[in-house]
């Protein structure tokens, strides 16, 4: 097992993970200087926004809220397929996180939300996102839409990928892929989908993605033609929850029943804690988080050979899930728990006998690249040069990419930057999930693209300007500040020397070059 991370490693990592941003110079200085044994716990605490209290009018925007709202926006694919619903949906999520609504309540709320128009009511956008248009683009295919809702909700909230059995039964297809799914049928999916069978999601005016969401106005017709999948066969499609077979009880609507069953099932907690574990640790206890094989989870009932238990640490997963449930599905509690653990705080330096196959043991930190948004916002914070990103369908402007409502904002206000961010794997809220794998194009963009070259130029009010205008006597101090913000550590004497020598040789251009070199360094790009 690796040793514990250094202070610099830790503070940069937890700040990027919890808030998407680099720690400030001030925060870093204080932390590095502090001898308080409990300083890591205190630092973690300071990254969370205040909980609302009586008498508060509102909670200010906060990096933690920006970062996790962005996370859910990616997860729920809040993008141009929702049209002007993007902003109300964004605000709804932001508010729910601000109020620290229990995750189960948050999910139930979205599953059961209705709307006269998704362009004015945010919550209903989550299920409206799954809409499927018929070929002509004017009518919604009701059954396909219900199927898509069933697929996306099972994936996001239970970690189970039902897409396979949307086209064919599990039998004769999935025996080598997923034991549990190989035992299930298309009809199981339709029964799940039929909890939304009576929920009408219909375009308000026609082609544009503005939807009415209303219960009691529709019906799941097994004989209808699918726009996406092979024809359905005759089957009993009385709504039944896939994991238990439970049906709607009296006094609740189908949707309410589904929301209740989904959020009270143990798999909800397990899938959720696993998802956030993966987000923070780089790898799930079940990997990947949307590929659970429910027949391979229980150490008391292990699967038949050659299958092995799926979770790398089944007791840990169960313990985390149980704790999450007991906390009232409190997301902040879960995040705090994970980042406070020794496992999370290990160094990325490998122990002597480390092998690549040890990844599932979590015995070292797996460094990975900054995400597209983290990278851009880090460059902004280091240089002090912020782009103005205009929010689409609004007059609002934001400073950080992590505050944008969708990639459309960037596409419309900074086309070139949008392309750069796409190359860095930005989630497009459509087909592409966020990707942090490196590529040659990324390296070339960092070395030579205008997006970075322009940002390290001397501009009014930037740190680059400050360095360029500083007298020689102040260089060491300025260089130290750059290292503190960019890498959360003080520079070595050698690094200061190199910096000073370069500035002496190259003057004001040298200042720009220094920022460029820091931004292209491996220590900056990875954490």
């Amino acid at each position, binding site marked *: 097992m690796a040793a514990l991370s250094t202070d610099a490693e830790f503070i940069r990592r937890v700040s990027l993970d919890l808030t998407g941003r680099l720690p400030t110079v001030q925060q870093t200085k204080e932390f590095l200087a502090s001898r308080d044994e409990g300083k890591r716990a205190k630092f973690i605490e300071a990254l969370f926004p205040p909980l609302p209290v009586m008498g508060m009018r509102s909670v200010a925007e906060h990096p933690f809220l920006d970062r996790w709202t962005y996370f859910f926006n990616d997860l729920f694919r809040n993008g141009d397929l929702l049209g002007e619903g993007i902003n109300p949906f964004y605000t709804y999520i932001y508010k729910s996180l601000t109020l620290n609504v229990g995750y189960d309540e948050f999910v139930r709320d979205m599953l059961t939300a209705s709307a006269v128009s998704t362009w004015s009511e945010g919550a209903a956008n989550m299920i409206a996102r799954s809409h499927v248009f018929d070929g002509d683009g004017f009518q919604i295919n009701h059954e396909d839409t219900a199927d898509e809702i069933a697929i996306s909700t099972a994936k996001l909230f239970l970690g189970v990928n039902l897409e396979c059995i949307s086209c064919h039964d599990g039998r004769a297809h999935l025996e080598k892929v997923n034991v549990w799914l190989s035992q299930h049928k298309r009809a199981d999916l339709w029964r799940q989908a039929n909890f939304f069978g009576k929920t009408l999601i219909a375009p308000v005016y026609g082609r544009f993605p503005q939807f009415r969401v209303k219960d009691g106005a529709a019906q799941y017709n097994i004989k209808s033609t699918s726009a996406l999948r092979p024809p359905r066969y005759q089957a009993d499609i009385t709504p039944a929850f896939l994991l238990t077979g439970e049906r709607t009880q009296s006094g609740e609507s189908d949707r309410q029943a589904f929301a209740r069953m989904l959020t009270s099932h143990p798999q909800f907690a397990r899938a959720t804690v696993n998802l956030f574990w993966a987000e923070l640790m780089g790898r799930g206890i079940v990997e990947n988080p949307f590929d659970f094989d429910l027949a391979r989870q229980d150490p008391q009932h292990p699967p038949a050979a050659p299958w092995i238990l799926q979770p790398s640490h089944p007791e840990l997963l169960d313990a985390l899930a149980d704790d999450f449930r007991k906390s009232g599905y409190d997301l902040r509690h879960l995040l705090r728990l994970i980042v406070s653990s020794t496992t999370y705080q290990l160094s990325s330096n*490998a122990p002597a006998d480390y092998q690549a196959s040890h990844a599932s043991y979590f015995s070292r930190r797996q460094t990975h690249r900054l995400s597209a948004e983290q990278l851009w916002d880090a460059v902004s914070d280091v240089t002090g040069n912020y782009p103005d990103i205009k929010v689409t369908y609004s007059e609002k402007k934001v400073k950080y990419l992590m505050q944008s409502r969708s990639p459309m904002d960037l596409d419309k206000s900074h086309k070139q930057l949008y*392309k750069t961010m*796409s190359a860095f794997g930005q989630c497009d809220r459509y087909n*592409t999930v966020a990707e942090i794998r490196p*590529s040659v*194009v990324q*390296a070339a963009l960092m070395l*030579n693209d205008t997006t970075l070259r322009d940002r390290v130029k001397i501009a009014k009010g930037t740190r680059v300007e400050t360095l360029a205008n500083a007298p020689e006597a102040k260089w060491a101090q300025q260089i130290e500040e750059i290292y503190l913000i960019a890498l959360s550590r003080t520079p070595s004497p050698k690094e200061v020397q190199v910096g000073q020598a370069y500035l002496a040789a190259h003057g004001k251009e040298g200042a720009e070059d220094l920022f460029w070199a820091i931004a292209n360094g*491996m220590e900056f790009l990875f954490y």
Partner: protein
Amino acid sequence: MLSRRQLFQLGGLTISGFGLVPFTQINVQAAAKVQPRGGADCVIFLNLQGGPSQMDTFDVKEGKWGPENRDIRTVKQGYQFPYGFLPRLANHLDDILVVRSMEAWETVHSRGQFYLQTGHAPSPARMKEMPSLGAIIASETEPNRQPSDFLPPYVSMNYAAGTMYGPMQGEGCLPGTCAPLTLDLADKSLPFVIAERDKARFHNRYELLQQLDTGAAALSPASPQQPLLYQAFRDSAYRMMVEPRIAQVMDLPETDRKAYGSTPLGDACIIARNMAAAKAGAKFIMVTQPGWDHHGDIYGKDGKGGLYKTCADLDAAFAALLSDLKRFNLLERTLVVCMGEFGRTPGDLTTLRGREHYAKAMIATFSGAGVKAGRVIGATDEQAAKVVDYGWREKRAIYPEDICATIYSTLGIDWSKRITKTPSGRDFVYVDPAGPQGLINYREVSEFFA
């Protein structure tokens, strides 16, 4: 300042170009019953994104819905061609083989494009791990890379990211070195080109980076995968950028630009030509021309827009490309393919005065690398609604899989090979006989070359 030789020796790397990361072993097995024909050093693939209208381009049909100025004329062998839409290509009919008996499997853009780029059905379970044509070609040609090769094997230009066409298909489960190098010619500047006036400054900065990058210096084989990969990629990118010949490859002189139509498509074709001419390791170059999805006003308004634009752009770029490839004696060893993901609905136009997606008839053209050009293969009915003559020995239409097999074959690649150690555990066959309509024995269309 470090000399160029010293720069090349930084980091202890000895191989130039793209193959710096140790090549990961992937399990590839062949069925050993396929004899690829070879004959091409390089493939240029023009991707007519959106689905070109077959009855207005290479399988032109008369009809009351067609404007007069399509200027349809009968060429030799009873083949008709729209001189009005594609005047310059009309002079290159001896350089192209036209295929009219193709069918697509898909009519959704992203699925059709996926098929075009991989030769496989877009199965949700496997899409992420399936390598594209270019990635397979990169993987297969890697052992033959020369130290002097400085271009990546798989290059993709002008494909718009994140649209309803789906992402550019990448390396899937193959190593990162098989990923495409993507360029967008609509950008004002290309990241791989350092302007002459910026070169000194760039070398200064890069030298400073080498001195300061303690993170890179600390890397060892025990380091996590991602930083190792990135460092190798950064060195590759740097090498490409300082390679003196890169300027020639990326150069777009005004005379050339004009000849090719002064469009992003034209510019990309110039670079494709240069990459073929450089013989520096580029094997599969995909150039995408968006804009063929004419659901409305397919014949434009007042003689502008619609097919007038897309055809004019293609005409200039494609004709100039063929011309130059011939002029520089490259056509014999370069395979040029031109096709989209599906065709368009035949007969009368829709209420929006356009045509919708159509899978039952589509066109493709082939040139170079031993293709017997100046001919037509296959035929459709009087509306281009269905294939009436398959044009080859099989009793079926030609599918995207057959095209993929043909492309692999000209590059000397055995298309029956399979990758066995995939993340999902399912074998990936380069061209899979199990298609959507059951088992079909896809094969290279040797009739193109006979």
